[in-house]
């Protein structure tokens, strides 16, 4: 089967039906990415829909290069248009180290808790984690999507993981208890 770039070139040349194949390959990852930066499923759905609408509309502007980075960059722009107040730049301040790692590992975890922790960190941190974790993007790939330097992405990822660890440790183990102490 053709790679993404070849398919997109053919879409660009008028074979619009092939966009369906690109959709099948990427819409799940794109949805999770949009969830990460948009914060809820409704926004994520709109974001995915809008991203593919823009791909269709601006298909002739595709100039080769990695399709996936291009698509996620489009989705990012769409999300920023949908959520003009959502900051996608990382916080200025350094993240506190928070509780020690041993304390974190000793406290046990569940997926809901981790999901909530992910929801508490800055969207710019969620963004790099999700791109690296779910899309297996390198720092160079992520840099193309978020419009930052490669090195800055690595620093952001480090801070993001620290923020996630801290948010996780601050959450009570019970998902229903509501004993969430403070924002990461």
């Amino acid at each position, binding site marked *: 089967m053709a790679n993404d770039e070849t398919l997109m070139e053919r879409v660009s040349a008028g074979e619009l039906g092939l966009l369906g194949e690109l959709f099948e390959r990427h819409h799940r990852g794109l949805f999770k990415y949009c969830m990460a930066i948009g914060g809820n499923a409704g926004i994520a759905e709109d974001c995915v829909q809008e991203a593919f609408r823009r791909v*269709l509309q601006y298909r002739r502007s595709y100039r080769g290069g990695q399709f996936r980075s291009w698509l996620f960059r489009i989705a990012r722009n769409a999300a920023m248009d949908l959520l003009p107040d959502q900051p996608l730049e990382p916080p200025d301040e350094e993240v506190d180290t928070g509780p020690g790692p041993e304390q974190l*590992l000793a406290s046990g975890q569940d997926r809901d808790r981790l*999901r909530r922790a992910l929801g508490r960190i800055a969207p710019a941190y969620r963004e790099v984690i999700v791109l690296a974790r779910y899309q297996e993007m390198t720092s160079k790939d992520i840099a193309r999507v978020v419009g930052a330097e490669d090195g800055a992405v690595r620093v952001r990822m480090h801070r993001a993981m620290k923020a996630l660890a801290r948010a996780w440790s601050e959450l009570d183990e019970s998902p229903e208890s509501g004993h969430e102490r403070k924002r990461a």
Partner: protein
Amino acid sequence: MKENVPEVGAPRKEHLPAEFREGLDGAEARVFDTLWDDLDEVLPEPPSGRLRRGLRRMILAERLRAWGSGLSMAGMATALVVGLVLGRLLFVPVPPPTPDTPVPDLRLETQLLSGATTAARLGAIVNLREAQSLPGPAAAALAGLVANPDSSAGIQIAALEALLAHARQPEVQGLVIELLDRPQGNPMVEALLREARAPETDGRDEAAGGTRT
């Protein structure tokens, strides 16, 4: 998370990609690795069926736009007919039959499909579309109109819509499948055929939280 913590002395598999491990001490790397692994499946799956249908509609709309932008004056006239026919077929509500409503003679309507004027053929197509069921000869005649390259785009689309209105009938399904197997040369007809072929839902919407309004 606990099950991901390696036993003392066990070889440690690297989880967080190497390029993101620079500067981490051992304990921090261990925490990050554990969180990294547990992030699997934390985020929900998308409503794929609904998104897929949305994409199909976008592609159809884009095809129509592209098709319309390439039309000559004669094509524009055809497009006007198409618009009128589609408007009649798709958007004008048909009143329910009353005891006084004349029942169309479907044999006569079928004959009219090969009538001399476009108006007569369109009228017959609309009547067949609204009929309770579609007789075999009428279905075959409609399929013939769709497949005939000499049919106007308006007639092709109206005939296809009439067929699709009776798509629950097995013989009509067979005809539609036959049409699907050969290119029609009309992007609107092909798009409608693909729409007809596409499954209505893949069941994943429900898994993702039901229909969103």
